[in-house]
Each structure stands twice: as structure tokens, then as C-alpha cells.
């Protein structure tokens, strides 16, 4: 009888440990999704190019995550990507003329939507659209521009100096 009691006890201990580990993994190392805790409202923005923005990406203001990207669809009538975002209802004083841009977190990080506050008196409501947008930076375009400006420099030095970047100014 005594040996069966210890069997039950160690089985119980084992099961308890297992569930404790599961509880730890679920509660301590996962992020709690924004839509789960509390109310939210939806806004949308139309981008020419969203780069590699994904569903579930963060929507942040001043670096603080205030929402998540709900869905991304391609609108054939305007040839633009429509990004619907869920924003925590606690942040209900975002001006309507705010600016949404697609940014990259760090050098290798994923992309997110950054919102910069505008100066208007009206605030975003459910179903509103953010009109001022900035597309994702496409590396190829950037390299093309850079290559073109270098090409100009080689061909015509005086022209590139006149419309060159700020880094040229201290030399003058």
C-alpha cells in the first residue's frame, strides 16, 4: 500500500510540474495580443507599396505599440494596398491628419506601421482612413537612386555638387 501511495504522489508531482511548465510557457514568454485585452477600433490606410509588412505587425506611435495590423488586401480599383489596423481604444485622441509610414525595426527587424501625430482637432474614429502615408523603403529603388547620383558625379561634377546631399556642404 505504501508503495502505491508514493507512485500516486510522484505521478501527481510529475503532472503538476508538466502543467506548471505549460503555464509558465503560455503566460510568461508569449505576448498577449492587443485585441484580446479590451476594446479597439479600426482605421485603414492605403499604401503604394507595403514592402514586407505582415498581418499582425505592430502599429506604433513614438515607439510605443498601440495596435496591430488586422489585414492587408490589394485594392484593384486604385492599385494600392489597403492596410486595416486595430488600435487600442485607450488611444482615441490621434489626430485625423496623422501620418502613417511603414518603417523597419532595426537593421534586420520586421516592418511595422509608425504613426506620427498631426496637428488637427479631429480625431480618428472607427472606420476612418489615414490619408497621409509614406510607403515602405524599397532597397532596390534606393540603390538605383544612389547609383544614378554616383553616375552623375562621374560625368558632370559641377551638377552633382549643386544638388548634392547635405554631406557635401561642410566641404564648401
Amino acid at each position, binding site marked *: 500500500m505504501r508503495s502505491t501511495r508514493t*507512485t*500516486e504522489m*510522484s*505521478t501527481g*508531482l*510529475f*503532472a503538476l*510540474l*508538466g*502543467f*506548471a*511548465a*505549460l503555464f*509558465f*510557457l*503560455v503566460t*510568461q*514568454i*508569449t*505576448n498577449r*495580443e492587443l485585441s484580446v485585452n479590451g476594446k479597439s477600433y479600426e482605421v485603414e490606410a492605403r499604401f503604394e507599396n507595403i514592402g514586407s509588412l505582415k498581418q499582425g505587425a505592430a502599429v506604433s506611435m513614438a515607439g510605443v505599440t498601440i495596435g496591430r495590423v488586422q489585414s492587408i488586401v490589394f485594392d484593384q480599383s486604385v492599385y494600392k494596398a489597403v492596410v486595416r489596423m486595430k488600435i487600442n481604444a485607450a488611444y482615441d485622441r490621434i489626430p485625423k491628419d496623422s501620418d502613417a509610414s511603414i518603417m523597419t525595426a532595426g*537593421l*534586420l527587424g520586421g516592418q511595422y506601421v509608425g504613426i506620427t501625430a498631426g496637428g488637427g482637432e479631429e480625431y480618428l474614429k472607427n472606420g476612418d482612413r489615414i490619408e497621409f502615408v509614406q510607403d515602405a523603403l524599397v532597397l532596390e529603388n534606393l540603390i538605383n537612386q544612389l547609383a544614378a547620383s554616383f553616375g552623375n558625379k562621374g560625368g558632370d561634377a559641377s551638377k552633382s555638387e549643386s544638388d548634392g546631399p547635405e554631406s557635401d556642404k561642410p566641404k564648401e
Partner: protein
Amino acid sequence: MSIFRELADNFREFLIAVGSVTLFLLRMLAQVPRALLRPRLIVEQIYNTGALSLVIIMICGLFIGAVFGLQGYEVLQRFGAEESLGVGAALGLLKELGPVVTALLFAGRAGTALASEIGLMRATDQLSAMEMMAVDPILRVAVPRFLGGLIALPLLAMIFIAIALYGVQLVAVQQLGVDAAAFWSQMRAAVEVDDVTDGLIKGCVYGVACSLIAVYEGYTAIPTAEGVGRATTRTVVISAVMVLILNYMLTVVMLR
């Protein structure tokens, strides 16, 4: 000519083996409701396969986590990204390493014990004796062991992952000086509940595979000392191969 015949024979043997494992599984599943009426037997088997594997799982988890910390730090610090070590470790352990290594250890520790125990019962005619007394050996011997392993493996995998994360943290934060707050907060930001569910599903699938193979091999062992030994070896080999193949297939499905 004879090569083809041999190949055909081998293929036929393989088909027969797959068929009889499937039939064995169905016979066990048919008895599950009746086996659940005697939970004591199942608890005993959870103790045998789970609780007794706890120490090896915890020790292996700790060291795998520690080595993950060392190697991950070595690579990531080249990019100045050593703080995302937590993310890599948590996702790698939850989705792949945790369930797979646990299943391999489980096959080695618990699967062999199951196979040799049932095989010895077969060799010493205990199973025939049960049949004589109108006790169904599938219901009395096979099903409780199968269910015990099935319940124990996912729990073991979760314990393994938690301990391994502690091991990673021990090396990365305590020893190599990765910032503790960044380590945990980046991990927390990147890991979703779905990732834990993935690991749990994998654990359950490997639980079914490993316990089924162990119980089947023991139950159908040739009733000699050599036969039981061979059944034990086959349990480990087939379990390991099956777990790795299943892992690839599950990962393909889960990445969709």
C-alpha cells in the same frame, strides 16, 4: 531476377508490418473507453514512463539549453544582436528541439522499458495466461501503457522546454552578460501562444507514435531472450526515425 524478388518480398513485409501496426492501434483504440474505467493502471504507467523519465529530461534540457546559449551567443554577437538570443532559443525549443529531443529521450528511456517489459511478459507466457483467464491482455497491458506514454510525453516536452530556457538564460544572462530585461522582453514580444500550441501538438503526436511503436514491438516480440532484445532495439530505431520524419511533415504543415 532474384534482386527484384527480394525487393518485392521486402516491400510485402513492409506492407504487412504497416498493416499490423495499424490494426493493433485500432484494436487498442476500441478498448480505450473500457481502459478509462480503471484509471489506476494508467496512473501507474504515467508514473513509469513520465515521472521516472523526469530526471533525464531535466538534465538533458538544462545542458541543451546551455549549449544553445553558447552557440547562439557566438553567432549573434557578430551582428550585435545577442539580445535576440531569447527569441531564437524560445522559438527553436518550442517548435522543434523541445518536442523532438524529448521524444528521442522518451524512446530511449521509456520506450525500451515498455517494449522489454511487454516482450518479457510474452516470453514468460504471462500474456497467454491472461488470455486463459479471460483477461484481455490488450485491455489490461497494452492500452494503459499506450495511454500513459501518450499523456506523459507532451508534459515531459513542456518541462524540457522550460528547463532548457532556464539553461539558455543561465549561460547567456548570468555568464555571458546578455541584458536580462532585453532577453526576456524580446522573447515575450516575438513568441505567440500558437507557438506553444505547436509544440504541444507535436508532443502529443510523438507521444502516440513512440508509445504505439514500443507497445507494438513488445507485444509482437518473438518470445525468446534474443527476440525481446531485438524488439527493444527496433523500438528505439523505429521511434527515432518516425519522430524525425513526422517532425518534418508537421513542420511543413505548421509553417503554412
